């Protein structure tokens, strides 16, 4: 047996793509109605389609590799995180030397080194930091995230692009499909979201119940488990001892303090099971993760992305769950849309008087029982009507606050506006994007000033 010492050249280009080209160049009976097989299909898709991968972690690394090897040539990846040692057991694009660097940047570079002809643009920032317009360039968005809030945000952005015609039918050109994956230990899910036809993330938000928190009185009065002792140190004792000092879960000294306080409390009450590792797990809400489940779920997502874009086969309809704890169980559920969904529906209808000003409109959003949105910024067809931040934009748009909406929307009887602000989601106030339909009372539908269709 030999050991590896020097690297051999990568496979030649035609050889690498021969297998995929068979699938894309041949007609079939179990394909999408729009499938147009040809020997050049891979090249066409590769050059025309831009894909956004959200997250460059356990799923993101796999997704970038799988998508690049599925013929996609123009990829973007966005992730605000830097590489940590504990990522290395599954995020295979990263090495020990990369610890501390941007996940998006390293991941993009590694895949480009290995797969020639692929261009990956990394974005080392928060998803909310990007202008909404940034997301409009992509044909498909693939999500490899571990947070409900981030999924919810991207979902609202993608659904926000969706426009409905006068019969409330989705306009195909405005569709931005998503493929979403998620894992926890030996379990995972992969789903396809086609806004307007499948349920969106928000339609089935109940699939992701909020995390159960311990009652504070249990922590303070009747602790019983190691987790109770840890959360006492974390949520109560820290603030008592360090008033005003922000707790940082990534600071080893802070974590050590929580651990020793938790241990003291556990000893006091005769409770066992407090370890440093368990303390980290509870405080950071660590979700166990392994390479194989991430590989499986990402592969399912990448395959669905390839099928959605090329039409070379059917697509999953619409929610796959994987469970490898006892055997290998795959289940596909067809969920249905929530027809009253605030996010993927035609938009909540807000009726205004022609005299209502923008500032009155913003106030209405705060009080609207379905929206309860505070600090709203308002845009219409890409134009900022009012922006809460940054300061420059706030100053620029402030004069609009006193102007009637009817005037700002150029005398249209009905219009679609996008608002972003803080809204209640799963019991938490989070940054949210909502699409609203504004209608003006007493104005006829065809009274638009620049009526092109009237005569």
């Amino acid at each position: 047996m030999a050991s590896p010492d020097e690297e051999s050249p990568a496979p030649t280009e035609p050889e690498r793509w021969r297998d995929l080209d068979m699938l894309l160049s041949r007609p079939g009976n179990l394909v999408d109605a729009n499938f147009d097989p040809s020997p050049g299909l891979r090249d066409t898709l590769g050059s025309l389609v831009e894909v956004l991968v959200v997250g460059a972690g356990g799923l993101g690394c796999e997704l970038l590799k799988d998508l690049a090897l599925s013929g996609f040539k123009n990829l973007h990846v966005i992730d605000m995180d830097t590489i940590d040692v504990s990522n290395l057991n599954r995020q295979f694009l990263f090495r020990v030397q990369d610890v501390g660097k941007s996940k998006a940047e390293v991941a993009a570079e590694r895949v480009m080194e290995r797969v020639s002809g692929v261009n990956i643009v990394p974005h080392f920032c928060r998803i909310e930091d990007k202008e909404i317009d940034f997301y409009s360039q992509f044909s498909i968005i693939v999500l490899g995230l571990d947070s409900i809030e981030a999924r919810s945000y991207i979902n609202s952005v993608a659904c926000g692009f969706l426009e409905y015609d006068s019969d409330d039918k989705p306009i195909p050109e405005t569709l931005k499909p998503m493929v979403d994956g998620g894992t926890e230990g030996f379990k995972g899910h992969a789903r396809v979201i086609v806004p307007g036809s499948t349920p969106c993330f928000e339609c089935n938000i109940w699939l992701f119940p909020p995390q159960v928190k311990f009652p504070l009185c249990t922590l303070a009065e009747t602790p019983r488990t190691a987790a109770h002792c840890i959360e006492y140190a974390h949520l109560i004792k820290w603030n008592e001892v360090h008033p005003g000092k922000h707790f940082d879960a990534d600071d080893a000294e802070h974590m050590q303090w929580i651990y020793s306080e938790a241990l003291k409390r556990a000893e006091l009450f005769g409770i066992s099971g407090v370890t440093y590792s368990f303390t980290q797990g509870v405080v950071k809400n660590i979700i166990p993760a392994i390479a194989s489940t991430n590989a499986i779920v990402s592969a399912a997502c990448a395959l669905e992305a390839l099928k959605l874009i090329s039409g070379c086969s059917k697509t999953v309809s619409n929610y796959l769950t994987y469970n490898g704890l006892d055997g290998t169980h795959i289940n596909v559920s067809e969920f249905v849309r929530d027809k009253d969904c605030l996010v993927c529906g035609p938009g909540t209808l807000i009726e205004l008087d022609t005299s209502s000003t923008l500032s009155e409109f913003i106030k209405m959003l705060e009080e609207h029982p379905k929206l309860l949105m505070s600090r709203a910024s308002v845009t219409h067809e890409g134009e900022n009507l009012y922006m809460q931040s940054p300061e420059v934009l706030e100053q620029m748009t402030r004069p609009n606050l006193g102007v009637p909406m009817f005037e700002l929307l150029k005398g249209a009887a009905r219009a679609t506006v996008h608002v972003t602000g803080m809204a209640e989601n799963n019991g938490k106030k989070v940054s949210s994007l909502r699409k609203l339909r504004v209608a003006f009372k007493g104005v006829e539908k065809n009274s638009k000033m620049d009526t092109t269709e009237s005569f």
Partner: protein
Amino acid sequence: MAAAAAAFAEPKTKYDRQLRIWGDQGQAALEKADICLLTCGPTGTEAMKNLVLGGVGSVTIVDGCLGQSRAKSVCSFLQELNDAVNAKFVEESPLALIDTNPPFFSQFTVVIATQLPERSLLKLDSICREANIVLVAARSYGLTGLVRISVKEHTVIESKPDHFLDDLRLHNPWTELKQFAKSTDISDKDPVVHKHIPYIIILVRLAEKWADAHDGHLPSTRQEKKEFKDLIREHMLNLDEENYKEAVESSYKVSVTPGISDDIRQIIDDSSTEVSSSSSDFWVLVAALKEFIANEVNGELPLEGTIPDMTSLTEYYVSLQKIYQAKAESDCLALEHHVKKILKRIDRDPDSISRAYIKAFCKNARKLRVCRYRSIEEEFGSPLLSEVQKYFTDEDYCFAMNFYVLLRAVDRLAANYNRFPGIFDSEIDEDVPRLKTAAVSVMSEMGLNGASLSEDLITEMCRFGGAEIHPVAAFIGGVASQEVIKLVTKQFVPLPGIFIFNGIDQKSQVLVL
């Protein structure tokens, strides 16, 4: 700066996210495992990537693709992922190795065979069975593929099921638990104490009260269970007492059927419990368990010894914990006694099975699993016909059964034509009837004359042309690696049959043939 600090990654930190799943013991088993991969195409490489990242002991890549020495380059890519793994390669055709050097395989823990034709797989399976090596076979083919496990027997103590009823013995409390419950005043007038009496105590006390009023019987009919809940509610001081709400929700636990489950009964009645000096530790313990149950008045298994969190004063909860732990320890000691007796009887050192192992066995006694796999030869020669027929007519399994037959048929055709159907665009039309003929012969050998195959899938198989599509390979390789992890760590439960991937609508299934 951060990079310099982490130039050497502590295994504890590096593997943190997986240690939370399989613990130090699972990790140690992985680090001891020697894995052999046959054929390092996309499917095999993907499987190995996941295992190398997880830190298996060693990997050996066997591949005969000489063009640019695929074995060597894949090996070096894998090595780059984790320097704690010993990565080696053998530049030889797996088919030739199977034919000429069967002893080669006996050095490994697991052999992962990817993209092997039926004939070689059959031969490899008999080699691995002979040497008692676990075989995992994986195949990607267009938008389908399969993963299968072959080993005579795989036993699991830590099956770690997702949802499992806790072991509280409320239907059959032992003396110490009854005494503790009796010593607690469940009608304490202090409202704070009253709402912090753990539901275990409430249920033990009220079940006794119920039994006293019902000739010693516990609630069993729907009506009785309802009345028992009402009895619990009568003891509430306020409607918002969480402990009483928990007692109502858990009231069914007093009505649990005593004794052992059918699954465990089957294991205990297995002929392997007639142990000899060559029996595995697992079966020695099951034999001891059998004696333990026979000696127990109520025929119960050893107590697990843990309780879930519940509304309670700290002192009540900690006392209860101790009572459960003490009972579990005494059960464990009793079992250990049987183990030693048996070991002596079969001429083995009575101390040759560690206490830690016996303890883990006791803790998981309700969750033991025995997985046995038919050999590939048995499956091919005498498939479970009733299962096959059921799969063919079941809407959910029909596609998977078709794929199974077609995956075997493509190998037949390849054996005759030296290529897979549909490799050449120009011959696809002729290959469709050829593949159909091959599939019909596979089916008639299985004893299926009359079941009809989906024409669409036959055409689809020819369209695939044996392609190894990357995301499919990543999926199949992912499943294969996950099964290897379960087999090596002896935790969780491996696939019971053949996993058939369906990349068309993703409705993949497991067939047991």
